[in-house]
């Protein structure tokens, strides 16, 4: 057998075995490499290359080395699931760099990080003043994660005491001018509903590039023709305005009406409607 065929055979073999092994090692490892993972992947890559070009002549010997480097990390991973001690041995522990707003010089020395490098890392997290940091640590992958002090954290609706409507994911129901029936049925709608919506906005299905339904059931459309300005759904805002107007009307009635019982009735309704407005505001305006 000529040499070229041997190389071809070995390469194909190693290609698929490596592919299989990498799938087996899984997602967790490849997304965040710590230095040990990096070495295992490196060794695996080099071994695969050496075996396939025949620098390691004996296939069996090559495979032994390959399998040890490939399977042992997987086995250790499983052991690490069972025992924290093994896990720490494998992955090490994260190092605290800043605690209660103070930089831990011991921690910096331990991970051999200079002050300048720490500042650079903080800047990459958009923190230019080290005084804004409450807590920072270096993960076992070498990544630095930072918790800003409470008064430097971004404001959330929770901080403002604002209630917001729960939002589930958007469902894409039209793509490239075709309706996606599967996505429609997952939110309990069908083609009939879609056609009705399109008819209402006087648009052909084939003209729509993207159509999405949000959690309140409104349909957002993007057309191929960008010169057409489609009115975006403002039904909820209109409803809120309508309710506001009714409330104002009721208040006016209660002021204008003479009989006391009718006056009280209008005032009572105006108050009830105000309650509704308050309750529905997060759902209608946000």
């Amino acid at each position, binding site marked *: 057998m000529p040499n070229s065929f041997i190389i071809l055979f070995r390469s194909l073999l190693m290609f698929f075995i490596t592919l299989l092994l990498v799938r087996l090692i899984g997602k967790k490892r490849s997304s965040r490499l710590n230095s040990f993972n990096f070495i295992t992947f490196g060794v695996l890559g080099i071994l695969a290359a050496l075996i396939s070009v025949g620098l390691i002549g004996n296939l069996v010997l090559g495979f032994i080395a390959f399998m040890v480097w490939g399977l042992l990390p997987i086995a250790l991973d499983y052991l690490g699931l069972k025992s924290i001690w093994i896990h720490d041995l494998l992955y090490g522990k994260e190092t605290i760099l800043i605690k209660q707003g103070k930089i831990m010089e011991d921690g910096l020395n331990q991970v051999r990080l200079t002050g300048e490098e720490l500042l650079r890392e903080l800047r990459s997290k958009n923190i230019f003043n080290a005084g804004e940091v409450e807590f920072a640590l270096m993960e076992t992958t070498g990544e630095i994660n930072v918790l800003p002090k409470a008064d430097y954290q971004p404001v959330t609706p929770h901080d403002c005491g604002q209630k917001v409507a729960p939002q589930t994911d958007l469902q894409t129901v039209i793509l490239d001018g075709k309706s996606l029936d599967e996505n429609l049925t997952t939110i309990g709608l069908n083609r009939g509903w879609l056609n009705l919506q399109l008819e209402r906005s006087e648009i052909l299905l084939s003209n729509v590039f993207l159509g999405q339904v949000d959690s*309140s059931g409104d349909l957002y459309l993007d057309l191929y023709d960008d010169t057409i300005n489609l009115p975006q759904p403002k039904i*909820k805002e209109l409803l809120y305005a*309508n309710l506001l107007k009714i409330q104002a*009307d009721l208040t006016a*009635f209660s002021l204008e009406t003479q009989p006391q019982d009718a006056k009280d*009735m209008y005032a009572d*309704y105006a108050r*009830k*409607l105000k309650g509704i407005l308050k*309750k529905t505001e997060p759902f209608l305006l946000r």
Partner: protein
Amino acid sequence: MTVGSQVKQTIASLKNAQATLKIYSIQSQSEETRRVFNEALSTTGEIISGMEARLKVLEFEEPQYKSR
């Protein structure tokens, strides 16, 4: 515009709002949203029936403005 027709207009607006609330109470995905809209729906229903009763009184008082 008489008081009667003003009240009628408000009832019409209320019914419009009620219909929209009904749509959202049906097509919303989350349980909580549906609950809030249903609550609003029952309150608007109550207001509508109360206003309609008041409208009858008004039409009795000013029969000349009664709509045919």
